[in-house]
């Protein structure tokens, strides 16, 4: 949608590896992507695919034993080489994060209001009273009822949905330009999930910030993303606009994933599961990591890791057989 604008954040060849007693685990391999102002990029994949590690690496919140290479350009700076002081100034002001479980992400011994005040005063020169007023406004904005009284309450006095709203209020306190939401609704019931996604959409519209939405739920992706990036076994397999990913799918993993979910309006015909299990990151298969489970795999797929290639402008896929499986099909149809 906003592809002609300058990217807000530009990630190039980002790799994250962990040294473990059992060997090297490559959690993210050569991730390259941009996020443009105001855009929602969904990063989708199953557990262990590397989506959360990617997000943590952008914020430099990864564990100490991680080895990171590549670059993350934001505002003319490479976040991967920035000093810890610079990062502290950026976190919570320019880039803010929303976690899956607000109960563990918030401090249980401080009131919700005072935690928001802390975030505001860390980055802005305002007195406590002004910051408190802003905190109450923010709670109101995310739909916490009776925000004046609620600001003085503690996280445990909030319900799950309300806590996640408070978390969003805290994240947008300094009008960040990028919100990173890591499975923001996974812990919530479906009616509350709908409310929280609505709030996220509204605050994103109101503040004009971009969002990186990490999720395993393709329904949530379909409802809120502008662009989508599908990850499998540490690599991006396909990226494109939300419509391209769902209607012009150009990667065997993406299409297998879409075929394996039951449709709430659909039939009871047997689902098409993906055979086997995701590979171990300690001992990944040679060549394309999806090869052992892929219905279209050939000899070539085991020989080398496929590169990301253009299917159409801004739509890319990592598959050796992308031409014969997808691009030629489009020409002939």
């Amino acid at each position, binding site marked *: 949608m906003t592809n002609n604008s300058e990217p807000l954040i530009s990630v190039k060849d980002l790799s994250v590896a962990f040294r473990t007693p059992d060997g090297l685990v490559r959690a993210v391999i050569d991730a390259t992507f941009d996020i443009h102002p105001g855009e929602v990029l969904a990063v989708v994949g199953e557990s262990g695919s590397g989506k959360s590690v990617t997000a943590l690496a952008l914020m430099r919140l990864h564990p100490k034993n991680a080895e990171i290479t590549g670059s993350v350009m934001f505002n003319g700076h490479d976040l991967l080489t920035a000093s810890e002081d610079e990062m502290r100034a950026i976190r919570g002001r320019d880039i803010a994060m929303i976690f899956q479980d607000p109960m563990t992400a918030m401090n249980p011994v401080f009131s919700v209001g005072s935690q928001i005040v802390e975030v505001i005063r860390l980055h802005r020169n305002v007195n406590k009273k002004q910051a408190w007023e802003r905190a109450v406004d923010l709670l109101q904005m995310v739909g916490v009822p009776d925000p004046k009284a609620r600001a003085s309450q503690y996280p445990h006095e909030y319900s799950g949905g309300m806590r996640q709203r408070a978390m969003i209020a805290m994240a947008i306190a300094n009008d960040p330009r990028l919100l990173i939401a890591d499975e923001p609704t996974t812990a919530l019931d479906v009616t509350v999930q*709908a409310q929280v996604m609505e709030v996220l959409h509204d605050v994103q519209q109101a503040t004009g910030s971009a969002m990186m939405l990490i999720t395993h739920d393709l329904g949530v992706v*379909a409802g809120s993303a502008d662009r989508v990036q599908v990850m499998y076994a540490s690599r991006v397999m396909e990226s494109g606009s939300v419509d391209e990913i769902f209607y012009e799918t150009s990667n065997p993993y993406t299409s297998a994933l879409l075929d394996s*979910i039951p449709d*709430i309006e659909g039939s009871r015909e047997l689902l098409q*599961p993906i055979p086997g299990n995701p590979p171990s990151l300690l001992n990944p298969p040679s060549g394309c990591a999806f090869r052992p489970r892929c219905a279209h795999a050939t000899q070539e797929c085991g020989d080398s890791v496929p590169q990301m290639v253009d299917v159409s402008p801004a739509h890319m896929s990592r598959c050796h057989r992308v031409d014969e499986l997808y691009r030629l099909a489009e020409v002939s149809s």
Partner: protein
Amino acid sequence: MTEIGVEPSLSPLPPLSPSEMGTPPVLSVRDLVKEFPIRAGVFRRQVGSVKALSGVTLDVFENETLGVVGESGCGKSTLGRSILRLVEPTAGTVMFGDQDVTLASRRELRHLRGKMQMVFQDPYASLNPRLPVGDTVSEPMRIHGVGKKEAAERSGDLLERVGLLAEHGNRYPHEFSGGQRQRIGIARALSLRPKLIILDEPVSALDVSIQAQVLNLLQELQQEFDLSYMFIAHDLSVVRYTSDRVAVMYLGSVAEIADSDVLYESPAHPYTHSLLSAVPIADPRRERTRERILLQGDVPSPANPPSGCTFHPRCPLAADRCRTETPQLVEIAPRHQVACHFPLGPGESLMERVAGL
């Protein structure tokens, strides 16, 4: 012990409707209540109670899958556990064939649990980590008097049937992935040839690609072993895929129960309607054009439920009557029951009704 499927000699309540299926139900739950005490103070004095189930009535028929859906705290898991008396129900009856489970002695209960099995949500917590999985699968047979050799053989067959290898029986649970462990849990449930399996969120801990494998396996096994399932889940798409009929629960009682297609295409209860409209669909075009009823607030605490219809504080149709009078589960069409004073008609949209108010 009598064979299951014989005419029930004593039924605590008349069948819900004559239009139900011709065969007697495998499982018949009537007015099931479960209260958990709230204790406080040094002497753990009871200061109140949480009504996890407040009078649940439903049937499961032969060879069918009854889906049970609802949000957290609605009592769906407590329902499954109370039926097997893994938690003791406070009141009500559970008829399995012609036997009242709630009155069964310990010995009878042990026998009954061979015929009614359960598969749990967490495949990591529900297998004994120190027992080779082959023993986990054969143990129920040993308890029920099957010889060692035969039990081991049958355990190998069962592991193969659920998609593992017989040799896997010598391995321990930590050597398996989540999906494989869930298969082991299913093999264990099958080991005594049950009539009914209560599946409590059997796929919600699994990744989507693995989820489909397990769902398909469950469907094959149902045909092969003539099983009835009670499929408890919060994922409405999964329940639609697996279930013949679906019961929607809210705060400890059944809000609506109907054939799957009827419930999903023409829900009568405003809660069912809003729940369905909240489910995200993996189809961007449908998502963009959908109208969504956003419910206000959260599910209330079962320790302090609202008066009258427990859904009234969140219901867009709530009227005075809903605040005072608890609606009963009544039949509005054959095989379609709903507990609402103002149910929606067939094909009527909640949005239209709200607009007309």
